[in-house]
């Protein structure tokens, strides 16, 4: 008993207010449960930013409509403004003229923010990879992307699958270790 008291005195200052539970004695458990609760809330109320530039936007609308109905998973509050959105769904081609606007939208979104690149154009330029002088070869040259959805355009089921994968990714993150995705982003150089 006497030995333990001596160790505590070394760690804590005399004027420290309150009581501290040593690590491994309950403190970590509280943080872990909080992580789960936060992630559960975050993943089930993802508000997408409606960013449709071309054909994929129609399939995104179909996903929101009655048959596929993405509100079953908590994505129904599609917002046209970045300030109220959690996830940006890039549905369509990004051109050289559009790229600065996309980056500005991304920067305006509040943390935590996620990106889904929908369709071949947003992944790599798609049909416009060769011979086009005005298309950005993939949205990940502009902003960091979390989930890629292949297809030209992808079926609504693919988009739903991608959003569910994003939910899984959110649930597996530790909030104490999470970093801002834009830090260290090399813009595809």
């Amino acid at each position: 008993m006497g030995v333990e008291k001596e160790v505590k005195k070394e760690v804590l200052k005399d004027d420290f207010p309150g009581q501290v539970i040593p690590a491994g004695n309950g403190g970590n458990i509280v943080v872990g449960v909080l992580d789960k609760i936060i992630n559960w809330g975050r993943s089930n109320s993802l508000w997408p930013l409606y960013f449709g530039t071309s054909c994929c936007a129609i399939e995104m609308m179909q996903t929101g409509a009655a048959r596929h109905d993405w509100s079953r998973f908590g994505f129904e509050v599609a917002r046209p403004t970045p300030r109220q959105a959690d996830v940006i769904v890039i549905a369509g081609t990004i051109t050289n003229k559009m790229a600065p606007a996309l980056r500005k939208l991304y920067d305006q979104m509040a943390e935590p923010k996620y990106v889904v690149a929908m369709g071949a154009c947003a992944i790599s330029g798609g049909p416009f990879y060769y011979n086009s002088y005005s298309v950005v070869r993939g949205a990940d040259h502009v902003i960091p992307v979390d989930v890629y959805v292949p297809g030209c355009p992808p079926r609504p089921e693919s988009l739903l699958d991608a959003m569910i994968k994003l939910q899984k990714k959110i649930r597996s993150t530790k909030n104490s270790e999470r970093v801002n995705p834009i830090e260290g982003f090399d813009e595809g150089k």
Partner: protein
Amino acid sequence: MTTTDTNTELKTQEYLINMGPQHPAAHGVLRLILTVDGEIIHKVDPDLGYIHRSIEKMCERDTYKQIVHLTDRLDYLSSHMNNEAVCLAVENAMGIEVPERVKYIRTIMDELTRLASHQLWWGVMGMDIGALTTFMYAFRDREMINDIMEETVGARLTMNYNIPGGLMFDIHPNFQRRVKEFIKHFRKALPEYNTLLSGNIIFKKRLQGIGYISKEDAVAYGVSGPSARGSGISCDVRKIHPYSAYDKVEFNEVLIEGGDSYDRYMVRMKEMEESMNIIEQLIDNIPEGDYQVKTPALIKLPKGEYYQKVESARGEFGVFIISDGKKSPYRLKFRSPGFSNLSILDKISRGHKIADLVAIMSSLDFVIPDIDR
């Protein structure tokens, strides 16, 4: 007792507002620079190019069979008509006569695409005005057309079904039955659309007298399609220069002499009925035969200039090809209906409020990749 001086004039000032490129009512990434005084619009200056994908330049390196799939991505809501325009231009230049079966199937597919496009326009127009329910009704019926397309073509949106010389593959055995089922369903659903939106007094007041296009202006600015027919101008390519099987069917060209947004709305609503009439006349009479004629693997058009126009869901879609006898065109130009229809936006929205601009844009039915190409 204090008195307020009512004689002093309120000083107002013009200022600029950016609408877009990320705007829910812009139907894409159109940027409009508005000069407004208070809420009254003085000038609309469209800034294009946010989805310019250099498709025309890419066509100069592709072969004629490869060009067809790029046209899907222009006006993705009338992709079948765009494909057909390129195929007809190549077929006419080569002197290829396609079988009757191909002509019938192409016409049916055209009208199905037109129906799907108008359904989406109707749903989104309701949303722009503030009636969110229309979106769900329209997409319920649109999914049925998507299913038919998927079964025969293999794609829901970008179809790529036409090739020079015919079709990619024959129709699915279920095609006729499912189209008839859809027509039966949509005959009941279209009156539902009308009761939900067309007669709504709020909706009418938002559209009537807003965005008036006179006959002279419509011709001068090159407005085509339902937007021009709302001003009473007969410009239906299906009637004037029939292609595919349009010379074998009877249908009315919908003309309304009004010119405001509500008339353009009613033209499209009535066009949906006409489209159903056309499909019903053709669906039981698809002749037997080949779905394709053999064409050389590498098509080389003879030297010269070729133009082919079709009636897309938004108006006259034209393809102009200059060939120097090689495997790809020397120059290819698309005459897209959206670009010409956009040019009149400034003239008709001056003096209206910003909220009316959204209604006017909806009634003109823009697809931005079609404008920017």
